[in-house]
């Protein structure tokens, strides 16, 4: 093979994948250098969606920043909302009523399911099977209906508030959620039957872009991507916040069931299994939720004390960290958003060396990146 390559002059191709490409999940641009179908180097170029959220954060008040967190990871707005609220509450030492915490956990887990559904659906669509994508969207639609009931929006929820949530759950919300869970739970095995264990699908993913546990930690992978590499680390368990300590769930890790540990298939399966765990958490939370107020007393002109705080929450895409510096005024002094997808893109160039063009799509899909979060 090598001898022939020397005999025939060949040329590397420089291909621009994106910013407009069907499977880069947004406006990611990957500069591919390929030798035929084999990728020599894939360098991600991010920033096409930069909206200067951190700069905006220095200009608006703490409460006003909430709608902008919707736009951080728009597939998991509730989680981002809650992460922001938890950060500010940690900074200011606000005690949140327990009911509000339970509501937050419920909406976060619902949002985790809906986010993983999109991850699952768009991943299969990237792999060429379009049908599971529409099934996933169909399920997500029901979650959106639930969210519309509680906050009135279907994508950018802006539901959580500093000190609680904006409104109590509407009538019959918990029953409706239970109905959804009963409907949704049998769908997961169906997905597995339909696509997860499909021979072609497995072949496309197994042993592709395997990341070892140590590598994953060093490169700062978090969330399902880290757990896919076999590292059992979940912030909900390891650094419990909110009412997660009271809830029982398993941390899903990649086992290398169809290939090596940490390959695309493991990352994919972790997400599928996490949906199941979220259902479990939701059932417990619904059973345990107490009554009471949903909002703590927070002054309208809210001025937290001077200080610096770093809070991280387990979001569907990994650890969303918020480094917040307060100078005692109504506006944050500095706001750093540590977006999981952004850090994940760091390892992209490394793992895609020597893969094929089609695998690039698989890697992007298995990382479940989302561009507004990368570019902020």
């Amino acid at each position, binding site marked *: 093979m090598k001898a022939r390559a020397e005999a025939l002059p060949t040329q590397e191709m420089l291909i621009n994948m994106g910013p407009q490409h069907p499977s880069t999940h947004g406006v990611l641009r990957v500069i591919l250098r390929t030798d035929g179908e084999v990728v020599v180097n894939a360098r991600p170029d991010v920033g096409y969606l930069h909206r200067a959220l951190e700069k905006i954060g220095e200009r608006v008040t703490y409460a006003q920043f909430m709608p902008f967190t919707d736009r951080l990871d728009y597939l998991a707005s509730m989680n981002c909302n809650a992460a922001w609220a938890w950060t500010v509450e940690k900074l200011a030492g606000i005690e949140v009523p327990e009911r509000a915490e339970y509501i937050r956990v419920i909406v976060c887990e619902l949002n985790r399911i809906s986010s993983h559904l999109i991850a699952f659906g768009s991943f299969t669509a990237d792999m060429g099977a379009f049908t599971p994508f529409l099934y996933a969207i169909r399920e997500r639609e029901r979650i959106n209906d639930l969210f519309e009931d509680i906050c009135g929006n279907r994508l950018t929820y802006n539901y959580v508030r500093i000190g609680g949530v904006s409104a109590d759950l509407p009538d019959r919300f918990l029953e409706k959620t239970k109905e959804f869970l009963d409907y949704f739970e049998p769908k997961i095995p169906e997905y597995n039957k339909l696509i997860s264990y499909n021979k072609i699908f497995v072949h496309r993913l197994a042993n592709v872009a395997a990341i070892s546990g140590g590598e994953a930690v060093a490169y*700062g992978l978090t969330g399902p991507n880290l757990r896919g590499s076999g590292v059992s680390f979940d912030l909900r368990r390891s650094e419990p916040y909110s009412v997660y300590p009271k809830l029982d769930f398993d941390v899903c890790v990649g086992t290398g069931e169809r290939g090596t540990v940490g390959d695309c298939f493991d990352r994919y399966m972790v997400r599928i299994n996490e949906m199941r765990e979220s259902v479990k958490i939701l059932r417990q939370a619904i059973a345990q939720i107490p009554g009471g107020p949903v909002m703590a007393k927070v002054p309208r002109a809210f001025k937290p004390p001077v200080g*610096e705080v*770093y809070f991280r929450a387990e979001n569907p895409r990994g650890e969303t960290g918020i480094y917040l510096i307060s100078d005692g005024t109504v506006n944050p002094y500095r706001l750093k958003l540590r977006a999981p997808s952004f850090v994940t893109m*760091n390892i992209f160039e490394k793992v895609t060396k020597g893969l094929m063009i089609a695998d690039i799509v698989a890697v992007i899909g298995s990382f479940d990146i989302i561009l507004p979060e990368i570019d902020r």
Partner: protein
Amino acid sequence: MEPKAIFEAVKGKFGEAVVELQEEGFRPAFVVVSPESVREISLFLRDDPAMKFDSLMCLSGVDYKDRFAVAYHLHSLEIGHRIGVKAYLPREAPSLPSVDGVWPAANFQEREAFDLYGIVFPGSKDLRRILLPEDWVGYPLRKDYKYPEFYHGIKV
């Protein structure tokens, strides 16, 4: 390990290079170090069996008006403790050694700090602008940043 103990250990090892411990109002607490020694201290924090900070959670540039700072949030998956490391930099020509050889995760975040604050990380694998266009003038997250009126002749 408690922040205090970590601080003592690092102080004992590096002496003058470790300036202070910021504890009150800081969660997690920060070990303030001198910028030149960041790489060595990082290596120590990563490799020392009592520290084992194997994961760099977050690297952020900060503009404190009178000076810049780079804040590192470290976490150890193995031991489960956390610490912040901070290095203050002068406003003029801020620069400190890159740690992407210590934690590869640092690369993109250093590029981001470079992009938005103009902090230079010598020794970095690949220090280019990341979020803004390559030809952007100025560092937008600096507090004294002036909004440009034109970009490539287009009014912004």
